[in-house]
């Protein structure tokens, strides 16, 4: 059994907004093993970014409620991050757990030289001289393969292109050699060719530093090449999880199937009708009592609208929450391989 570095238990996050309380994350459990890459996949508003920000302790405290009735836990090496004080979290953030964001434009300080920004994150967590920190910053820039690193160190973010900025962001995030890197849509704002470069870089650095990576994304293409395990989120809940192969070749949840088949394959015929889901994800201010996907699910049953399905386990890694796996469910016309084993 792999060693678990992070365990999230029963995490719920609600935001108080003008229109009411929005239940962005509604009871999420998962774990992360040392050195592995876990992808959290889902569409906008499904709670994937909120989950990762909750781990980092980056949610705005005034409008946010974490936990709920049963008490949430985020265990990092056995310690509950939710019980840490703000000072303790500052010590962990950026040194043990780091995060990179979607928009490299806004996550760097425009008035600080790149070198100083990297050195700053080193200085916060280590007691070394500024000169040493800058030397280390130079090493970091070389590690993320920025050409002419010594020169680049003295430049400002606006002198960097998008891809370069994302590299600099990675350098800032990895400056203290964290054990976990949370990458929130790291390549969404970048072009395909740059996207590939950045994903390669993250993969290489992960091996080099033996980090665990949580990759938050909506892009199944990116996930296929880098993730070890995938969990699919919909409307604040994890609806299915499994290894990469399990999710891509034998997914058991209709939403996962829909996500996979709504992307055109390079080999499919032109202008063939793509599989498309009707409607839009639910409003999380009034989340449905049953399965949130039921109103868009072509296999939906009466029970789906009333009661949330229990989790069914198919293998060491694969789990799914869907009524279709109930023995009484109607299995006719389901996609191949979706429901396995007859009981």
């Amino acid at each position, binding site marked *: 059994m792999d060693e678990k570095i992070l365990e999230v238990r029963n995490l719920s996050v609600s935001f108080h907004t003008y229109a009411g309380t929005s239940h962005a994350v509604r009871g999420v459990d998962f774990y992360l093993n040392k050195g592995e890459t876990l992808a959290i996949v889902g569409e906008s508003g499904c709670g994937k970014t909120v989950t990762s920000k909750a781990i980092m302790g980056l949610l705005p405290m005034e409008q946010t409620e974490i936990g709920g009735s049963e008490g949430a836990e985020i265990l990092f090496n056995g310690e509950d991050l939710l019980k840490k004080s703000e000072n303790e979290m500052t010590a962990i953030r950026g040194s043990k757990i780091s995060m990179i964001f979607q928009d490299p434009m806004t996550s760097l300080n425009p008035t600080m030289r790149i070198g100083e920004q990297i050195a700053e994150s080193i200085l916060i967590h280590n007691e070394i001289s500024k000169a040493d920190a800058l030397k280390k910053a130079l090493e970091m820039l070389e590690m993320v393969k920025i050409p002419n690193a010594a020169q680049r160190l003295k430049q400002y973010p606006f002198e960097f292109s998008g891809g370069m900025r994302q590299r600099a962001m990675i350098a800032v995030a990895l400056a203290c050699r964290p054990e976990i890197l949370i990458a929130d849509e790291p390549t969404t704002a970048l072009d395909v060719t740059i996207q590939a470069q950045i994903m390669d870089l993250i993969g290489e650095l992960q091996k080099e530093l033996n980090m665990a990576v949580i990759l938050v994304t909506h892009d199944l293409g990116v996930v296929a090449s880098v993730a070890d395990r995938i969990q699919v989120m919909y409307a604040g809940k994890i609806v299915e999880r499994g290894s990469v192969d399990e999710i891509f070749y034998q997914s058991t949840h209709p939403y996962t199937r829909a996500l996979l088949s709504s992307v055109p394959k390079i080999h499919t015929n032109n202008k063939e009708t793509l599989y498309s889901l009707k409607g839009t994800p639910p409003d999380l201010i009034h989340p449905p009592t049953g399965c949130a996907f039921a*109103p868009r699910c*072509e296999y939906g049953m009466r029970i789906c609208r009333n009661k949330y399905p229990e989790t069914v386990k198919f293998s060491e890694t694969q789990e799914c929450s869907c009524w279709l796996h109930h023995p009484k*469910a109607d299995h006719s016309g389901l996609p191949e391989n979706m429901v396995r084993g007859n009981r």
Partner: protein
Amino acid sequence: MEMVEKRTLPQENDQLDDQFERIGTEGLSGEDIGEKSLTYWADVWRRFRSNKLAIFGLVLLILVVLLLFVGPMVSGQNYQKIESGMKNQLPSKEHWFGTDDMGRDLFTRVCVGGRVSIYIGLCCTLVMFVIGSLLGALAGLKGGLVDDLIMRFCEFLGNLPYLIVVVILSVVLGRSTFSLIFAMSLTAWVGTTRMVRGQILQLKEQDYVQAARALGASTGRIILKHLLPNTMGIIMVDITMAVPGFIFSEAFLSYIGLGVRPPETSWGALASSGQMQLMFYPHQLFFPCVMIVLTILSFHLIGDGLSDALDPKLRK
């Protein structure tokens, strides 16, 4: 393949079978959207209403205005009547705010002076709004030479020493309410022009304006249907915030003797004459000042509330 938990099935299996009937997306269009729609201004009003301070400001303003108009009728005093035997009276049953150094009823004078103050404030704001938004929209839309000319003119006016302009104008035009309004609004629209121009510059790059152009819409249609409705909110806030500024300037000008001419009066003129009696009869300065403060406060509270209610970031 094992179940994580043993399912607790109800005994009545028949009922359960019914529960497992496939219904797909039956009865759901999948295109449902939120509840009843609110128009833009109804939504603004809803958010404004839920802001206690702003509502307090609005109520305060209504009360002040009511007082100014109803006050003299209730008190039954004439604001110009001089009673030589009643000089510098303290507040009493007959003279609620006391009397001034000429024996005139201070309460009635505060009410009548307030009408003038607010009237001047509103007139200046109107001038500022009309000139400012027209020139601003023109500069923003046309760009090029027109824009350059308007903006240089604004800079010129904006850099003139305000006080000197007012002094010169009141010398040239004589001291009257009109010349005061003219002098105060002469340079005031500069800020509005800049703001509206900035808004229009930003808005005209919006996709919906381009879409209207792609549909063949004329410039007039684009201004009326697309640009102006979308700048209205910010202009409203600007207006609300401008009124107290003008009231304050009027008070200030009257205070230094450049304001309305006696026997007409205003809050500034009242404060000015009250100041001379400050050592012995502080109430003569106190009452007009309280009214100025309350009015300015109410406008500021309303303005703040409006700008919050209009803030797109605070919309859901």
